[in-house]
């Protein structure tokens, strides 16, 4: 009861900071996840222009150093600065996972909409096709693609993107079916909106929250997938810094320098956790049935 009154009172004082504070209290998960994601994105952007040392710069005399004043996180077996590599590794990770989500959404969302609005044979065909992709091991598909086109950031992105299409198609379809069954869609048909216009004007805006949440949750999956592919050498090829590649490299020096494996592992875990928390939090915020009444 007290929180409700407090919410009311603060509602009279509009302002960014106030709204953010209310959001944080209502949903710490969204805020925490958002902050983690923000930090990682900022690091990735900074890394494009500046890193303490060049991510590929070799210092032969300073191999396998632990954390220290010159190299904050230490160096690898060639004497490359781990912090610089970690920072610049954020770029391919974020670009690849975001690209994969874009590919998955770009194909999955229209497919889901089409399936929901057409029904019948078209719908069946689309959803069985989605099942087919879903049942095919993503890793196997990635290996096949790499075998044909060679290992590269783009190959990994496309492979993960295709594997993620069903996730979008299904969420879009089920959310669209709910919207298509509502009274306001019936009312819109009754005043003469065409089926296509109903999709554009009513269905898409109303399923947008689901799409946003799904994108955020899917990003956590694709981050992990990108890391896994580069760990296996199927992603961005060395010597470019990738979190998965760094992990694979550190594996050989686990006894000499165990911390070397900790940093990329931590980065991957934090990134996955961040997107997951953000998606979870957004779901709670955007789901009207879970939202407290204002």
């Amino acid at each position, binding site marked *: 009861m007290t929180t409700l009154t407090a919410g009311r009172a603060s509602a009279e004082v509009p302002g960014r900071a106030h709204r953010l504070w209310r959001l944080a209290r209502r949903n710490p998960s969204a805020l925490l996840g958002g902050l983690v994601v923000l930090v990682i994105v900022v690091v990735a952007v900074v890394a494009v222009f500046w890193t303490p040392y060049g991510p590929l710069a070799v210092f032969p005399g300073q191999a396998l150093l632990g954390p220290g004043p010159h190299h904050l996180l230490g160096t690898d077996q060639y004497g490359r600065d781990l912090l610089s590599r970690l920072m610049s590794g954020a770029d391919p990770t974020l670009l690849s996972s975001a690209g994969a989500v874009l590919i998955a959404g770009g194909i999955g969302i229209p497919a889901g909409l089409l399936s929901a609005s057409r*029904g019948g044979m078209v719908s069946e065909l689309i959803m069985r096709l989605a099942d087919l992709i879903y049942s095919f091991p993503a890793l196997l598909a990635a290996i096949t693609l790499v075998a044909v086109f060679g290992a590269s950031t783009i190959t990994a992105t496309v492979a993960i993107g295709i594997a993620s299409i069903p996730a979008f198609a299904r969420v879009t379809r089920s959310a669209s079916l709910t919207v298509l069954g*509502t*009274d*306001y869609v*019936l*009312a*819109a*048909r*009754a*005043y*003469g*909106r*065409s*089926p296509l*216009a109903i999709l554009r*004007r*009513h269905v898409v*805006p*109303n399923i947008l929250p689901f799409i946003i949440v799904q994108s955020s949750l899917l990003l956590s999956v694709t981050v992990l997938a990108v890391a896994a592919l580069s760990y296996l050498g199927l992603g961005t090829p060395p010597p470019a810094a990738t979190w998965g590649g760094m992990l694979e490299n550190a594996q050989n020096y686990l006894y000499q320098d165990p911390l070397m494996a900790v940093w990329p592992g931590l980065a991957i875990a934090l990134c996955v956790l961040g997107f997951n928390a953000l998606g979870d939090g957004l779901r709670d915020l955007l789901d009207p049935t879970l939202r407290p009444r204002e």
Partner: protein
Amino acid sequence: MSLLEVSQLRVDAREIPVVSEVSLTISAGERVGLIGESGSGKTMAALAIMGLLPEGLTARGSVLLDGVELLGLPERRLSKLRGSRIAMVFQEPMTALDPLMRVGTQITDAIRLHERVTRRAARDRMLQLMGRVGFANAKEQARRFPHQLSGGQRQRIVIAIAIACGPALILADEPTTALDVTVQAQVLALLQDLVRDQGSALLLISHDLAVVSSVCQRIVVMYGGRVVEAAATAELLASPRHPYTDALLRTSQGIGAAADTLAGQLPTIPGAVPQLGLFPEGCVFRGRCPFEQERCQHVPEIRGRDHQVACWFPLGPPTGRPAAAPFGQANA
């Protein structure tokens, strides 16, 4: 030529008939009431006319609007007619508006769907329409979202959308049922005024005899998916010929009289509306009718010109009250 001519309309949910042999004509500017209990098929009949039947339901027969057959018309042509020639007001104003769209935009959209007007002209029309349905400061209210309006306000928006392009026929399916009693009368009066001003015809669907008889010139009574009686309002109220109509009238008239004449008992129709698909063969009112005879095992055809009735043993001549056995007494 009548504006709407429905003949032998039949709606099936798989094998189960929901609406059977419904015939109905509405002339331009006429206000017709369609009355029946829930489950009598009145909403499905309306949706069939609009071509908006839910999936799995099929309509047969004929629905002529301006002489054009609507059943089987492709969706593209139907959506051109909907809103411009024929419009519908739904029962539930809470859900009939898109929650993410400003109410003004929803009206403007309805206008621009059917008329090639500029954004500004459509907006002016929208503000004018909102004024006509009783919004004092239309400019401000148009920017609101549905959840910021009351049920009565929302239903007035829904009505504004329905009348936006001046349709020749408006189907109103229980437009006041979901509203507070205090607002019901307002909305009903508004609907009646608008329809009269525009010269539109109105098919008012309701289970409330009082609502229908105050607005409509003619009343069609449905029971069990069939039309059992149709006549001018005054005629129907004064001398119902179908036992079901008669019973319906007694229940609604009896409430006032209940206190003194029936020792506080409300008049009821014995029995309950059977479940869908379980209606008796022959006359649908069999089993609840006090005048039932052997002949009622066959479906009675609807007969008569101005006062139509589907009953083998209609009550009395159209003039004067028949000496019908009152309900509640066992019949021989």
